[in-house]
C-alpha cells in the first residue's frame, strides 16, 4: 500500500485505530526517517479522538524509550521505541510490560521483542529514496494473521 501524502498516513492510522484494543501489540518497523513516529502521532490522535480524550502532544519516544498517553478510564497507549536498546535483556531490566495489562502497545524498532510476542500486528514502513515514495506492508501473527486493509 502506497502512502503518498500525510493525509494517506492519517487515513491509515484511523483505520488501524478502529481495530486496536487493550493488550494489543502494534509493531512499527522501518529505517530512521521512514515515518514511524509521524504515523504514531496520527494513531494516538485517532485513538484519543475515538475515546473522546483531550489530545495530548505526541513526541518522539526515542530518548525516554516509552511515552504514555491517556485513553480514559481503563486504557492507555504505551508508545515504545527500542532504538537505543542493545539486547533483549535490556527490555526485562527496564521492567516494561510488567504492568501492561490495560495498554495498547505501539512499538517502534521491535526487532528485539518480536520473537517473544505470540500475537501482533506489524506495519513495515518502506521509503524508496530514489523515487521519494513511501509505502507500507502489513502482516500479523495470531488473531492478526488474516488482517488486511481495503484501500
Amino acid at each position, binding site marked *: 500500500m502506497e502512502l503518498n501524502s*500525510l493525509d494517506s498516513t492519517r487515513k491509515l492510522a484511523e483505520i488501524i485505530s478502529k481495530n486496536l484494543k487493550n493488550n494489543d501489540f502494534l509493531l512499527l518497523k522501518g529505517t530512521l526517517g521512514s515515518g514511524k513516529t509521524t504515523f504514531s502521532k496520527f494513531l494516538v490522535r485517532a485513538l484519543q479522538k475515538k475515546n473522546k480524550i483531550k489530545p495530548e502532544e505526541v513526541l518522539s519516544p526515542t530518548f*525516554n524509550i516509552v511515552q504514555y498517553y491517556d485513553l480514559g478510564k481503563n486504557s492507555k497507549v504505551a508508545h515504545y521505541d527500542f532504538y537505543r536498546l542493545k539486547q533483549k535483556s535490556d527490555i526485562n531490566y527496564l521492567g516494561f510490560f510488567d504492568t501492561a495489562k490495560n495498554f495498547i502497545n505501539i512499538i517502534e524498532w521491535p526487532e528485539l521483542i518480536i520473537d517473544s510476542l505470540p500475537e501482533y500486528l506489524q506495519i513495515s514502513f518502506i521509503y524508496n529514496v530514489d523515487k521519494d515514495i513511501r509505502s507500507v506492508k502489513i502482516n500479523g501473527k495470531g488473531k492478526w494473521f488474516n488482517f488486511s486493509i481495503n484501500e
Partner: protein
Amino acid sequence: MNKSLTFLGIETSCDETAAAVVQKDSQGNVKILSNIVSSQIDEHLKFGGVVPENAARAHAEKIDIIIKKALQKSKLSFKDLDGVAATAGPGLLVCLMIGLSAGKSIAAILKKPFLAINHLEGHALTARIFNKISFPYLLLLISGGHTQFLIVEGVGKYKRIGTTIDDALGETFDKTAKMLGIEFPGGPKIEKFAKLGDENFFNLPKPIIHHPGCNLSFAGLKTAILQITRTIKNQKQKNDLAASFQKTINEILYLKCKNAMKQFTNQYKNKNKIFVISGGVASNKSIRKNLDDLSIEMNFKNFFPPIEFCSDNGTMIAWAGIERFEKGIKDKLDVIAKPRWPLDPSAAFLKGAGVKY
C-alpha cells in the same frame, strides 16, 4: 542574611547516574563541592560483567557508589547536609525511581528536608550557579530528550513559549550521526566531522521555518539526511553532510531564537534582556558561537553553563533543591516519580506539523 545551605543532589532520570554536593554560603556564594557523573568515571569502576547501558539495573548498581563518592569528594559527611534533592521526573519511570528512592531514604534517615526536583527545572536554573542572573530570563533548553523555549519568571514559575513538535535536537544530532555510521549516541562527533567539511555542499530543508513563533521541527530534516546518506561514498562527503547539517541547525536556531527574543522583549519591556542556553546540545561550540552572535545582534546578554554542567548532572538538582528550599518549599516522602512532568502545564497544546483535526 540567609544561612549557609548544603544540599546533596541525585539525578537518575535517564542514562546518567549522578550525584553532587553543592553549598551556598551565607553571603550567597555558591561552591560545587563535588560533581560525580557515572559516564565520566565508568572506566574506573569495576562492576563485573556487562551492564546494559541504558537499563535501570545500571543505576541500581551504581547509585550507592556514586553518592558515596560525591560525599567523599566534598569532604563532608551525611550529617553536614541541610537537605537532599532528587530528580522525580520527567524521565523513564524505572530509572527515576532509583534516584528518588535513594534520596528519600537518605533524607528520612538524616531527618532532613527532601525536595523532589523537576529535571527540566534543574537545567533551567543551572546558569544561576555561575552568574548572578535575575528573573525573568529567556531559556533555550536543548538536550537529547527535550527542546523547548521557556520564560523563567522565577523558581517554579515557567512559561513555555515554544517546543519541538517531533524529535528533540540532541536526538536529531544522534540520529544524523547514526546515519553517517557513528554509533548512537554520536551527536558530539558531528561537530568534529563538521569542522572538516563544506557547510554549503548540501542544501537541507528547514521544517516549519516560516511559521511564526518559536516551535521547532526536525523529522523532515532527518528524512532528507537519510536520502543523502544513501548516496554518500567517502569520508569527505560525510564531513560535508555533517557541516551542512550543523549549518542548517544553526540557521533554524538563529531564526527561532530571534522570534523567541522578540516575544520576550514584547512581554517584558523594561526588564533586562537575558538569554540562557542549557542542556547537552549547548556544549556544541558552533551553536554557542551562533547564539553568541545572535545575542549581540538582539542586544541580549547570554549565558551558557560551563560545558560539564550542560549535560545531566547532580549539581543542577542540588542547586534547584537549594533554590526551592529558600522559597520555603519541601516535599513529602510519599512523592512519586512522574515520567511526564511539564514545567508549564498550562502551555498551549501543540497539534504538530501536518497533524490536523
